[in-house]
């Protein structure tokens, strides 16, 4: 177990270094950073001086080493566009994205799992068939279209919900939250539904097919033959055996949700990291892009680590074997 964690941590470091290399590559190969920093009328001497002070003439290894150390310290450099530390921008934008993503995934889990269990148990029921048909919409419609349709219906036609922004936010230290104000919560509804819909249908279909698989097993039949209640059989024995794939997918999806909140954030003008990234791409603001890349990679790595540890919590067969077997007889 311990050795496993160490091994996974080392792998994670390797992944992060690779991502850092790509991020660093952005600086060197996507245009000349000096051109982005200075105006057109700067003299060649001044450019050279700046290049020297910024350390851009050092060897590749030295520059990369410096970049990795700075990044690890949370120093992502200055935004070309906004002339302020990228770190400050991230701190400002991250809460919006994380709140949106986590609420979406929770919504997807707490609606998707029960729907999956239900459709798995009542495979031929009318309601289950309706769920399954509706889930096709969730799977096949592109996110931005759902967002725009929600805005049209609830924002423009019914005027129940705000069409853009985060509403009022409350600052808790450096973290700004929209979860504590009415307008913040109202603003969260449509973007989180938009973002959750695909994940929800995915989880529902996954739980359903896993349930169908598990319900056929002997241990479920044996649990019923022992007279256990339906609740204990379906939600205890059966559901727990579907969890490993569900945890895997949910973990991966949480990463994707954070990374691909970009589209939803653009549609709803949500002031999160995704929107910041899109703006950075438009402005060729390389430090921001690089920082975003590293941060998303970090999220993925951490989530995957947590997922691996959750496997251990769920499945005893993966834990260290305390004297298996015991001979025949």
């Amino acid at each position: 177990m311990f050795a496993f964690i160490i091994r996974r941590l080392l792998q994670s470091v390797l992944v992060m270094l690779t991502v850092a290399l790509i991020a660093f590559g952005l600086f060197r190969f996507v245009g000349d950073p000096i051109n982005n920093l200075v105006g057109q009328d700067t003299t060649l001497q001044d450019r050279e001086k700046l290049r020297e002070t910024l350390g851009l003439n050092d060897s590749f290894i030295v520059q990369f080493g410096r970049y990795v150390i700075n990044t690890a310290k949370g120093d992502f450099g200055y935004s070309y566009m906004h002339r302020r530390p990228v770190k400050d921008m991230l701190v400002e934008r991250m809460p919006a994205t994380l709140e949106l993503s986590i609420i979406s995934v929770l919504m997807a889990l707490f609606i998707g799992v029960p729907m999956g269990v239900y459709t798995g148990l009542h495979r031929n029921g009318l309601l289950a068939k309706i769920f399954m048909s509706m889930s096709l919409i969730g799977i096949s419609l592109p996110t931005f279209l759902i967002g725009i349709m929600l805005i049209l219906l609830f924002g423009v036609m019914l005027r129940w919900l705000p069409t853009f922004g985060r509403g009022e936010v409350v600052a808790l230290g450096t973290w700004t939250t929209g979860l504590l104000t009415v307008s913040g919560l109202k603003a969260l509804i449509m973007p989180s539904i938009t973002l959750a819909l695909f994940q929800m249908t995915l989880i529902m279909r996954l739980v359903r097919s896993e349930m169908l698989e598990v319900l056929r097993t002997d241990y479920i039949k044996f649990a019923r033959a022992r007279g256990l209640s339906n609740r204990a059989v379906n939600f205890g024995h059966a559901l727990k055996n579907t969890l490993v794939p569900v945890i895997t997918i949910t973990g991966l999806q949480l990463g994707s949700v954070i990374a691909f909140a970009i589209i939803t954030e653009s549609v709803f003008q949500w002031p999160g990291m995704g929107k910041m990234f899109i703006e950075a791409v438009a402005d060729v603001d390389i430090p921001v892009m690089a920082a975003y890349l590293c941060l998303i990679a970090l999220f993925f790595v951490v989530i995957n680590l947590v997922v691996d540890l959750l496997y251990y919590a769920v499945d005893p067969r993966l834990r260290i074997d305390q004297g298996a077997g015991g001979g025949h007889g």
Partner: protein
Amino acid sequence: MLKKVETSPLLSVRNLRIEFPTRRGTLVAVDDISFDIAPGEILGVVGESGAGKSLTGAAIIGLLEPPGRIAQGEITLEGQRIDNLPYEEIRRIRGRRIGAIFQDPLTSLNPLYSVSRQLVETIQTHLPLNDKEARARALELLDEVGIPGAGERIDHYPHQFSGGMRQRVVIALALCAEPRLIIADEPTTALDVSIQAQIITLLKRLCHDHGTAVMLVTHDMGVIAEAADRVAVMYSGRIAEIGPVQEVVRAAKHPYTHGLMGSIPHIGHHVDQLTQIEGSMPRLQEIPPGCPFNPRCEEATDRCRVERPNLQSVNATEVACHLFDKAGA
């Protein structure tokens, strides 16, 4: 010592018919069978796969899998009719009054729950015991089924036990609430031959100690001869012959039983070739009219091909075969 004479049977099956409606017509898997099991008696049910043995067992505990259904007949347990009970009531009978043991111990136990949890859960479903008492009972049961070091092993997971040990755990689970009847569906088929004998001996001893009756479903005549008091031979969903085990083994009457006995090798008797029954059991949609065994029977007459034989008493057994029709009957 006089054996106590029981007048009323523990379980009584009357004219049971199990059907599977399919698109191409209704298949009759079990056709009009009747038998009794006395308290404390071990009834062996033997036959080829597809003869309807396991279905009969499943029907008794109300676990026929749809679309299979009881089309006709009655099942009574201690005088109470149980084949038409609502789901919740038959659930309360399962495990409490009728226990079950399944074929494959490797798949009968939920891999994610410890043995103690599965035992305690089953005990508390049926008996009003608190956690501590239930655990004490679980420990007692494990001891009784011969798990060495039960105190240490109670919190282990199924994968930490060998196949034979797991089948002992399964037996303990079936005995949790002291049922009057256990339906053991091929309890030794998946085990090594050396373990089979141990499990059969254990099952016999436990049922003797607890006064539990057993319906022992198997295709192994050896297991029947070893354990059963009476035996029912099934063929194509019907009972071909039923009677005391010595009588059936030593003086088989039905040509099919005869064939079954001839196909068992005996140590000490030298034979050049074991007899075999030509052909195979008809599929459900191809059961011939008359006696279902007639195409494979060497003694079949024209009457066997048109008229279905009913069970009739011959000495101590009952046989469904026209060869034993008394004159004028």
